[in-house]
């Protein structure tokens, strides 16, 4: 059953198109990874869903629905009713995402109180419970502490607790492990995976780390230059990537089961800025197989596994 459906979403800042016709859906309880380099439009897609696009950014076209609710046309009050209730979001910088002057327990409890789902007392008890669930030792005393007294990993657990306490149907996680130590990353991923299994919350996971994708996701959606270039089940994408960009992304991962073959692979060139995006296929400037056909815009093709390329990999050309 589809929970979140994004249809043909475009976001622009003034004249500049930043997200261009993204179509994406997340099923109930499903973990979908949104993958791409910085500037590919994945965070903007997520913020559009939350209704939290910054000043000067507007949704130009497209529709976003969550279950029955239409998010793209929703008023500010409807959106703030949904946020922290049906949808929750966690961010990349755990320490700076928590208010430095408010005890962490109060920040976890807050969304229950503002949505009228619990009294202050109940919310406090639930917050301590939730802190325990995310693996914070001595949650009663930790709840009274300030973010500065906790480590980065602990703060990320607090943020996850604040997101899960309202038992949202959808959690958007914007690079939840990027700012953390590698050892902590694995723990946080495990925690998120355990919580989703328990609560049935669906996750839209934004990351540029294919390792994180393999760990957590059911399906992958690869973005480049504000467009979706490939999407499909995680196994299929990892085994048989069709878009050259996806293949290159996967090649950047060092493999443990093979002998290292010299230098680690890096995708040549840089992500062009939005004003320099080429017409037609956005990846043509960095692709290893562009032809004249690539000046046209490729459409997503396929069914469960979709990709937008005229010269997909894995096919003799």
């Amino acid at each position: 059953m589809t929970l979140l459906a994004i249809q043909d979403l475009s976001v622009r800042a003034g004249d500049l198109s930043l997200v261009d016709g993204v179509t994406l859906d997340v099923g109930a309880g499903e973990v979908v990874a949104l993958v791409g380099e910085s500037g590919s439009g994945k965070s903007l897609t997520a913020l559009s869903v939350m209704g939290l696009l910054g000043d000067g950014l507007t949704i130009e076209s497209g529709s976003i629905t969550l279950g029955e609710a239409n998010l793209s046309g929703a008023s500010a009050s409807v959106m703030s009713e949904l946020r922290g209730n049906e949808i929750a979001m966690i961010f990349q910088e755990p320490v700076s995402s928590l208010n430095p002057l408010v005890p962490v327990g109060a920040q976890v409890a807050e969304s229950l109180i503002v949505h009228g789902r619990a009294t202050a007392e109940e919310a406090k008890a639930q917050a301590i419970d939730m802190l325990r669930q995310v693996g914070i030792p001595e949650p009663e005393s930790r709840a009274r502490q300030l973010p500065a007294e906790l480590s980065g990993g602990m703060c990320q657990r607090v943020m996850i607790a604040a997101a899960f306490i309202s038992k949202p149907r959808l959690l958007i996680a914007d690079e939840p492990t990027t700012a953390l130590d590698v050892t902590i990353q694995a723990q946080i991923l495990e925690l998120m995976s355990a919580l989703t299994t328990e609560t049935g919350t669906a996750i839209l996971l934004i990351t540029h780390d294919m390792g994180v994708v393999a760990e957590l996701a059911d399906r992958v959606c690869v973005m480049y230059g504000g467009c979706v270039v490939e999407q499909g089940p995680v196994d299929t994408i990892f085994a048989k990537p069709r878009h050259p960009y996806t293949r290159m992304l996967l090649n950047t991962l060092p493999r443990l089961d093979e002998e290292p073959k010299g230098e680690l692979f890096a995708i040549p060139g840089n992500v062009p800025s939005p004003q320099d995006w080429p017409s037609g296929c956005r990846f043509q400037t960095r692709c290893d197989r562009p032809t004249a056909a690539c000046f046209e815009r490729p459409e997503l093709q396929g069914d469960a596994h979709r990709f937008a390329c005229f010269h997909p990999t894995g096919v003799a050309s």
Partner: protein
Amino acid sequence: MFSFLVRRFLQAGLVLLIVGFVAFSMFNFVGDPIDNMLGQEASQADIERLRSVLGLDQPFVVQYWKFLINALDGNFGISYRQGRPVAEIIAERAPATLELAAVSGLFAITGGIVLGIFTAIRREGFLANFIMTVSLIGVSLPTFLIGILLIYLFSVELDWLPSFGRGEVVDIGGWSTGFLTASGLKALILPSITLGLFQMTLIMRLVRSEMLEVLRQDYIRFARARGLSERAINFRHALKNTLVPVITVTGLQLGSIIAFAIITETVFQWPGVGLLFINAVQFVDIPVMAAYLILISVMFVAINLLVDVLYVAIDPRLRS
């Protein structure tokens, strides 16, 4: 916390010593009090005698030392002009200045914070932009000019408020207060606005820029993501963070309210210590000037101490 306070008190003592020293070294240049006291008819012998009676023939370091010893006893000497103990004169005048400073400080803080928050939250709005433009006048017009303009408008043209003095005062245990009579309260309005306007616009602009900065922080975005209303975000999450740096500046500004009171008191003929000081300067009344400067520096130091303690109260991170 205790050692922090002890350290602060020692620093405060040092500051007071230095202020007194600098003040005394300057008194040598403001003129000779003997001229004013004896007039032109006095003989050289009279002048010399009075000079040595007052101790003015000694080097200023010695004068300063004697002043310090006496001040520790609460004895600030006898005013050359009025012939009465300085401590008594200042105690008479201090309530007028302190009440004026308190009212204008309150006006500056509440007005500054409320308008600062308003202009930050509604930064695109017409009214907010209007307030910001008008506030430029507040920071750029000199205090005495604002005072004169207010007197012209509200006393001369409209005749709503008195143009000078404190109105009727009530004496309560040696403290003369203008808070208890209608004319006393009316007399406070114009001088308080004059004295507090600059500070208010300053605090307002500071609160606004701090608040805009805070509203850009990650934790505000995360608060939005949790579905908090704009109101809760602005007042529960942003305001507290805004106030931390605002307190320091505000504290320092309160000190300068008392110091700037000299000008306002002169414009409004307000019978406070500022006016006393101006008159003392004209007469080279050294004991009064010295006591006034020490009083002002005690206040500055006390306010700074209070600011440091308030910091700890607002920002729990400093408590460890």
